[in-house]
């Protein structure tokens, strides 16, 4: 009897401790966002603000063109996610489910594109985008994602390689084309992986900083991560308002993540060989 209760209790305890470690700084962020600047970093630190400063949130959305920047960020995030899912899944399939000469060498090249630091590629990339006429637009930020991203190709390839060979072979015998196998068998079975890729990409695009900084030259195009800098000055910052902006920046993603969980983690009933 005792042994049966021990496991869930230990797990709950472990989860609670870990949860605290991860949530603590975020809770601190929320707490700071509701204080005045003077209180924000007072010594000794305390959690509950003396007077809750809801006005920080109002200031956060009125100091910067918050709505505009959110739309910009949303546009870029959605476009990159939409583009990258299909354009990465196809190559991943090619690397995982078909054997062809030169495949592994090309795959190594795919991986290799992630190994050269961005700083040395920044200026030649800028030149390419300039010649395409894309500088000072959103295009450098999302169009490349329509051509596959190495990270996603790699991840999906690993997942695709866990699906039993027999499924493909059976389908081939049934006369299904490779593309058909991809679309009707592999992709449906990979919903958790594909959703993971979509969510990870959306989040990465949402928080992207260096690329928007370099390629956007018009404040009207700025994204939220660039806009957050507006709360900082030479020797100081509006700390509490910055934290409020940070909270607002994070909340939609948290909600998205919460909702996405239902889709890709829970309740996936699989038929066939993969139980």
């Amino acid at each position: 009897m005792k042994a049966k209760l021990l496991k869930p209790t230990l797990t709950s305890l472990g989860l609670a401790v870990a949860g605290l470690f991860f949530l603590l700084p975020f809770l601190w962020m929320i707490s700071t966002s509701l204080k005045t600047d003077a209180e924000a970093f007072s010594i000794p630190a305390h959690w509950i603000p003396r007077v809750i400063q809801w006005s920080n949130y109002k200031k956060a959305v009125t100091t910067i063109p918050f709505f505009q920047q959110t739309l910009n960020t949303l546009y870029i995030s959605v476009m990159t996610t939409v583009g990258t899912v299909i354009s990465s899944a196809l190559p991943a399939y090619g690397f995982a489910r078909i054997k062809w000469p030169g495949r592994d060498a090309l795959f190594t090249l795919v991986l290799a594109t992630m190994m050269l630091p961005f700083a040395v590629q920044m200026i030649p990339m800028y030149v390419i985008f300039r010649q395409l006429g894309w500088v000072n637009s959103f295009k450098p930020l999302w169009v490349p994602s329509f051509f596959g991203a190495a990270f996603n190709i790699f991840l999906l390839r690993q997942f695709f390689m866990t699906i039993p060979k027999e499924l493909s072979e059976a389908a081939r015998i049934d006369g299904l084309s490779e593309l058909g196998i991809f679309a009707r068998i592999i992709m449906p079975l990979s919903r958790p992986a594909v959703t993971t890729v979509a969510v990870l990409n959306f989040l990465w695009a949402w928080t992207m900083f260096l690329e928007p900084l370099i390629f956007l030259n018009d404040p009207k195009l700025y994204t939220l991560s660039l806009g957050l800098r507006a709360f900082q000055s030479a020797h100081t910052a509006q700390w509490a308002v910055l934290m409020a902006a940070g909270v607002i920046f994070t909340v939609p993603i948290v909600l998205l993540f919460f909702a996405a969980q239902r889709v890709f983690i829970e309740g996936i009933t699989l038929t066939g060989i993969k139980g």
Partner: protein
Amino acid sequence: MSRTQRRNLWLGLAFVSPWIVGFVLFLAFPMVQSLWYSFTDKNVMGAGGWVGLENYRELLLRDKLFRISLYNTLYITLLGVPLSLGLSLVLALMLNLKVRGISFYRTAFYIPSIVPAVAASMLWMWVLNPRYGLINDLLWRIGIKGPLWLGSPPWAKPALIIMSLWGVGNTMLIYLSSLQDVPSQLYEAAELDGAGVWSKFRHVTLPMITPVTLFNLIMGIINSFQYFTQAFIVSQGKGGPANSTLFYTLYLYQKAFRDLQMGYAAAMGWILFLIILSLTLLIVRFSKSWVYYEGGER
């Protein structure tokens, strides 16, 4: 080539074609140009000429800061990657259980990965404050005089590692998806054979998630070697105190945009490339002995 091989070659290339087109359009030129630059003393404006292997010689034989930055980067990679892999696996295992409020916990573990870097770094500088930060305050209560963290050269890197552990959400998520994919029949079969919790973990879970473990390991190394943003914010681009947080790509960035020595920076970039590539190929070669793919076409 046989007919099947040729057919497969066309098919394979067709599937990979979106990436190939993108590579040719966006990635090939920057890579080739930076490689060429690495053999020149070109500055940021493109002025300068061929110097052969001089940059590489200078870097590998004479540049003290190069060695320091490489050491710093190796330090956080060798410590940080295993820690982050271990932590994210443990968390993913916990989140894979049917415990009440599990959605809440999953979201909680993921939140730090999406907090904007500038806010996160500010937060951490306060959390790690040697006198009144959360961590040292807790240590104080149990009688330990906490270290000086970001303000002291020997503790700055461990502080950054702790900060980065907070961002294991991505890796954890990937592990979680993989755990969800493990067919329940395998567990059932193992249980029928009398396997206990640990045995199930060792003989069912671990092998089945090796494809994703390989992914997390390689991506962990690729990312760790290019660690930049948090250290940049926290040290204000200087890599202090006393060069203890001067990481490889930070030094590279300084060479490119502070000293305008694009050729030199490019050589640094390609040395890093070779290091990461060699490590990756090594890991992949060894992976054949421990990674299990149920369906890969090998």
